[in-house]
């Protein structure tokens, strides 16, 4: 009887040990599965936010380039500008005042810093879906290349839902634009114009523009001032500025 009882105790102890091992194994498997799920979800969430922000950079970038080109390379006009036409003077007092590449990049970045928010709209669709999003200041770095403009945006964002949290910082987009080439064409034209400041050198503008697949429109706005529009035939942009000539 004693032996039978001992056997029973061992069998029961065995069952308990086996059950505990099973429980531990099952528990570990569940943890691993959840870890895999979290790893899958985190990049999915960050990718969607990344895509959302980058599509806004694309949209605001295109708007920035249109706006800046239509105001002679400026988001905020310089002192040497015409108040009613909202255009800068590129040739004034027999001197060239073409926007420099650095200034052009600065002006585009200012536009992005000021206006990206209006596309992001406080991440309203994400908040609606239950995400908590903290955002900080936008800071944009611009590189103007001959055929495109690179927008590198530093925009610290923290996205949280339930216990899941993700931080994003850098975003980048390329926008097709020949605003850099346009500025180069105008710079070359102004260099020629400075050599003889008494009259408008039409060929100095038209010839390099044609070579770059662009066309020009010249309109007098006052006795001594003309408005020049450089139109890109490839990507539809208009680069507009004023030239003032001394009328003796």
């Amino acid at each position: 009887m004693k032996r039978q009882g001992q056997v029973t105790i061992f069998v029961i102890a065995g069952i308990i040990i086996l059950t505990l091992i099973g429980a531990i194994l099952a528990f570990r498997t569940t943890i691993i599965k959840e870890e895999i799920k979290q790893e899958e979800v985190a990049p999915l969430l960050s990718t969607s936010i990344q895509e959302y922000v980058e599509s806004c950079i694309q949209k605001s970038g295109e708007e920035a380039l249109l706006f800046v080109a239509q105001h002679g390379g400026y988001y905020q006009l310089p002192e040497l500008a015409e108040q009613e036409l909202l255009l800068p003077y590129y040739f004034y007092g027999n001197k060239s005042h073409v926007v420099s590449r650095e200034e052009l990049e600065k002006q585009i970045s200012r536009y992005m810093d000021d206006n990206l928010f209006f596309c992001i709209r406080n991440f309203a669709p994400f908040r609606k879906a239950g995400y908590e999003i903290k955002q900080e200041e936008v800071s944009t770095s611009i590189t103007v290349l001959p055929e495109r403009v690179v927008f590198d945006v530093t925009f610290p964002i923290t996205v949280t839902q339930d216990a899941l949290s993700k931080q994003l910082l850098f975003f980048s987009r390329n926008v097709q634009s020949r605003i850099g080439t346009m500025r180069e064409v105008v710079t070359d034209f102004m260099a020629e114009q400075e050599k003889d400041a008494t009259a408008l050198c039409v060929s100095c503008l038209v010839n390099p523009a044609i070579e770059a697949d662009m066309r020009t429109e010249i309109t007098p706005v006052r006795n001594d001032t003309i408005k020049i529009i450089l139109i890109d035939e490839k990507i539809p942009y208009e680069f507009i500025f004023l030239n003032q000539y001394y009328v003796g």
Partner: protein
Amino acid sequence: MLILGIVLLCSFSVFADINHYYKIDLLYNQGNLSYQNLAVQPSPQQLQNPEGRYIAEVVSYDNKILNLTFFVIPLTVFYDRADPETGELNDGGVITLQRLQTDLYVPYYANAKEINIYDQELIKKLSIDVSSYAQATKEQKASPAFPEAETAPSAAKEETPELPIIEPKIKPKTKILLGVLIGIVMILTLVALLLILKRRIK
């Protein structure tokens, strides 16, 4: 020369900060107003709508009126008809449009919650939620009137990229499963102990 120089310098004004405006693509349809698009855009100059008897009222989070813009919906069109042979005007009249699309520019306010549009009889014709364009200052964030996480439940299209759909919901099943297993082990242990006790009593 000096005076001329001063006059010229004065004519170049240093431009103030860029203004921002809500651009509302309004649709008038037989007395009803709706909007198709809403965006905020910068402008280096003051944008003004042709004045009229419609009113756009910008309201803040604490229900203060921030701005009133008077504008017109140009429904009346005057026309003249000329004789193609003689070139003389021989007919003319007035057409009243029943359906019209027009752009309305309203100054942007960082603490605006909505824009209400009233007709000439001061009857509210449209209310536009602009809360998603609001920017909270430190003071506003501290105020309970500024719901930072509020979203824009607008029916109209706002110019924002499509949101990729994701549903990252994880249910905490682990604890439940562990509890059930521990329970089973405890019940088994109890049953085993009872069986041992019964046998010993016999």
